[in-house]
């Protein structure tokens, strides 16, 4: 009964979003205020029914309703209640419904917090969001309904949730990523609405910016969390695989990063307008492309979502409509957009332009590496795979100019700069960076590869130049406290974003260069030395969990005679699916991770163990968090707060779009 209600309310929501797509857009076209005014109510109504529908699925999962194909394949009665909830997005159909939920949620949020927008624009933004909602709802209802029934013959027990997904990190990873993907649709809608209205100005950039930043924030967190999850769950210490699904999330992130820099230029200086619009369109298009890659199964990946050509074709069709339509509109309207400002070669505008170009090139490279195997296969040239070294190599090339310019850009002024004025500063920063990097690396390691030195140097360069800029800005004032006070939130956001990036680069460089990894064969009682740590294999004990049984290897780690940690590396066997899972044991610290994973049992009582020493790996995810914090800082900025505090409370954690009056 409840699942049927879920299906029906999703159908009602589809009806409402079809209206949301037609009424406001038609109203805006014919300048009919009454039609336009229908938009917010429709947006809210659609949101309510989508949430009801999702609640029905959660209810079915919690009550072990195995008459549903979805629940039977993704849950089981012995699953703890919280995993029963997360199982609603553990499979394809449920994940799509979650996507629809997010889409409806963002749409409602936009409708609530866009009160200060002029009606034609507001109606168009909501109409475009409604159109996107229609696409995803039709897809969910027709191609991948989680409410499909198995009646009259249904199993008494479910198939269980994939054990890999039974992890706290996995509870929030997909929702975060979807928030990001779908959040980019808001930016997209703003861009399309602005193109339709024909008014692309600083105000447009100002409205789009907080939404873009919110989406980027979620994407950043989602990607960092996914990488951390892969590291701790997949059992072999990898943190990024250049897997198609990871690439699918990286591409929108890269574009969104370019977009938020370009939006800053458009907002502050009124230039790059048509470029910014193009990026806004590209950002969401890459989200859709990512969905296509993940959902269609054209590319096989670790994430192994089911392949279904019909689903792929639908998303490809939708992608073609969205991208084709928006690019056609762009082609018609963008020529009318004038960028007024002038700037010289040596200016902050050009530095940010370089940032954008490099990020776009990075995106294209990821796209090339991800889609080339597909094209190759479809052309009948056989299956190929593109190895990780390709991506690593390309990203190393790109990092050099990117980080170099990143270090200079904050020191540059808008419009133009005399090179001589900066020359001595840059030389000073460069010398300090080289000294720090050299002292650090050569005192800690016997061997320093040129590429490692380069990467760490670039990270330090970004770090030093950022600090240098803060010091310079604060000491200009009469007192340091006064100087610090005068720095804005968005300045601190830039600092935090750049420092976070430096942390990630540093961590990737050092982990890649100095990780020590050993697969060993050990009997209980034996020990092995690795990087100054002694690993004692104390023995194997049996473990029994809620829905699994297994073994845990007890490994105590000693350093200089003292016990540092006792690690329990588990090998679990899940009762329902009979699947095996490696649960690595990690002793984490800022300077290094000690990582032990249990392999299979070999003959004569020996076990295969995987022992890793990973220096500075925590900084990768810490850097991600620091970057994400930058987004939060901007969202908290006064400039992006709404007109009334009541409105702000309503809109929850995402700050409202700035009003037209409070233009500072």
């Amino acid at each position, binding site marked *: 009964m409840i699942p049927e209600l879920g299906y029906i309310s999703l159908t009602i929501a589809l009806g409402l979003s079809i209206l949301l797509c037609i009424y406001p857009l038609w109203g805006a076209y014919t300048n009919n205020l009454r039609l336009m005014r229908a938009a917010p109510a429709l947006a809210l109504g659609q949101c309510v029914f989508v949430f009801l529908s999702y609640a029905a699925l959660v209810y079915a999962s919690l009550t072990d309703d195995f008459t549903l194909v979805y629940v039977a394949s993704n849950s089981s009665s012995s699953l703890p209640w919280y995993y029963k909830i997360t199982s609603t997005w553990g499979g394809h159909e449920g994940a799509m419904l979650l996507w629809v939920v997010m889409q409806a949620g963002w749409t409602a949020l936009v409708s609530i917090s866009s009160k200060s927008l002029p009606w034609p624009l507001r109606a168009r933004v909501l109409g475009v969001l409604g159109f996107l909602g229609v696409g995803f709802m039709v897809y969910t209802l027709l191609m991948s309904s989680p409410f499909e029934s198995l009646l009259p013959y249904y199993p008494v027990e479910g198939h269980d949730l994939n054990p890999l997904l039974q992890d706290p990190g996995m509870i929030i990873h997909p929702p975060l990523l979807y928030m990001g993907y779908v959040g980019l649709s808001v930016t997209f809608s703003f861009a399309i609405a602005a193109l339709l209205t024909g008014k692309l100005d600083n105000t447009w950039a100002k409205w789009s910016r907080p939404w873009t930043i919110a989406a980027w924030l979620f994407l950043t967190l989602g990607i960092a969390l996914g990488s951390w999850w892969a590291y701790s769950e997949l059992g072999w210490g990898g943190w990024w695989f250049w897997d198609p699904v990871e690439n699918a999330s990286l591409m929108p992130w890269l574009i969104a990063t370019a977009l938020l820099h370009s939006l800053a230029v458009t907002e502050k200086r009124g230039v790059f307008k048509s470029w910014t619009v193009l990026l806004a369109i590209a950002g969401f298009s890459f989200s859709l492309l990512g969905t296509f890659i993940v959902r269609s199964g054209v590319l096989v990946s670790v994430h*192994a979502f089911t392949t279904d050509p019909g689903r792929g074709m639908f998303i490809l069709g939708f992608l073609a409509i969205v991208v084709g339509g928006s690019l056609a509109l762009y082609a018609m309207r963008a020529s009318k957009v004038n960028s007024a400002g002038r700037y010289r070669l040596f200016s902050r505008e050009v530095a940010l332009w370089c940032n954008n170009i490099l990020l776009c090139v990075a995106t294209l490279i990821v796209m090339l590496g991800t889609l080339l195997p597909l094209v190759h296969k479809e052309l009948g040239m056989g*299956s190929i*795979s593109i190895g990780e070294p390709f991506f690593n190599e390309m990203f190393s090339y790109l990092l050099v100019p990117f980080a170099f310019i990143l270090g200079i850009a904050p020191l540059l002024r808008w419009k133009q700069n005399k090179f001589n004025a900066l020359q001595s500063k840059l030389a000073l920063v460069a010398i300090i960076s080289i000294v720090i990097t050299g002292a650090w690396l050569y005192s800690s390691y016997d061997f320093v590869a040129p590429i490692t030195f380069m990467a760490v140097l670039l990270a330090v360069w970004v770090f030093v130049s950022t600090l240098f800029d803060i010091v310079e800005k604060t000491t200009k004032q009469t007192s340091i406290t006064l100087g610090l006070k005068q720095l804005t939130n968005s300045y601190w956001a830039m600092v935090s974003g750049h420092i976070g990036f430096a942390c990630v680069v540093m961590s990737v460089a050092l982990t890649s260069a100095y990780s020590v990894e050993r697969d060993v064969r050990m009997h209980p009682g034996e020990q092995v030395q690795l990087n100054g740590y002694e690993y004692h294999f104390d023995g194997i004990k049996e473990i029994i969990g809620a829905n699994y049984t297994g073994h845990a290897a007890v490994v105590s780690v000693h350093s200089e005679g003292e016990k540092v940690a006792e690690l329990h590396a588990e090998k679990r066997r899940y009762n329902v699916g009979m699947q095996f899972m490696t649960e690595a044991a990690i002793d984490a610290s800022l300077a290094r991770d000690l990582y032990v994973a249990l392999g299979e049992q070999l003959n004569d009582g020996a076990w*295969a163990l995987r022992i890793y020493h990973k220096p500075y790996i925590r900084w990768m995810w810490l850097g991600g968090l620091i970057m994400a914090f930058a987004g939060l800082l901007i969202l908290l900025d006064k400039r992006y707060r709404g007109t009334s505090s009541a409105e702000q409370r309503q809109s929850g954690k995402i700050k409202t779009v700035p009003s037209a009056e409070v233009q500072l």
Partner: protein
Amino acid sequence: MNPRRKKRMMTVLAVVFGLGTAVALVLYALEGNINLFYTPTELVEGKGPEKQKPFVGQKLRIGGMVVPGSVQRDQDSLHVEFKLMDTGPTVKIIYQGILPDLFREGQGIVAQGKLIAPNTIEAFEVLAKHDEKYMPPEVAEAVKGIKHEKPVYNTVKGDS
């Protein structure tokens, strides 16, 4: 040329030069990192209409089913050898390290490595998918002879 045109000219030149370098670098990096996929039959009898065989020393990927009873472990190291097959001849895989959780005899796996003899591969990576229903699509194609065969065996229609 007036200064503005000159500036534009320079910008265009810079963009062309940048693009050129980028494309060259990408192609160069791609060249060394494209790994062709073979099934055991293709490896032994040649791939495609030209019956192209890989040369010894080539990096490649191979996917097939682990032949039951073929897994042999070394007594005092992590050295392991096993045979892979699809519809025809078998190919030997040599691997040093820990096999993935879902590695089983009779299961589909993908190995990545170097061809060290006409039908022996030294693998540096062995992948079994996280999904117990998984069969490499290329293998599914080879075994079933049908393109886009949905690799799901269980009776319940569902997803991972």
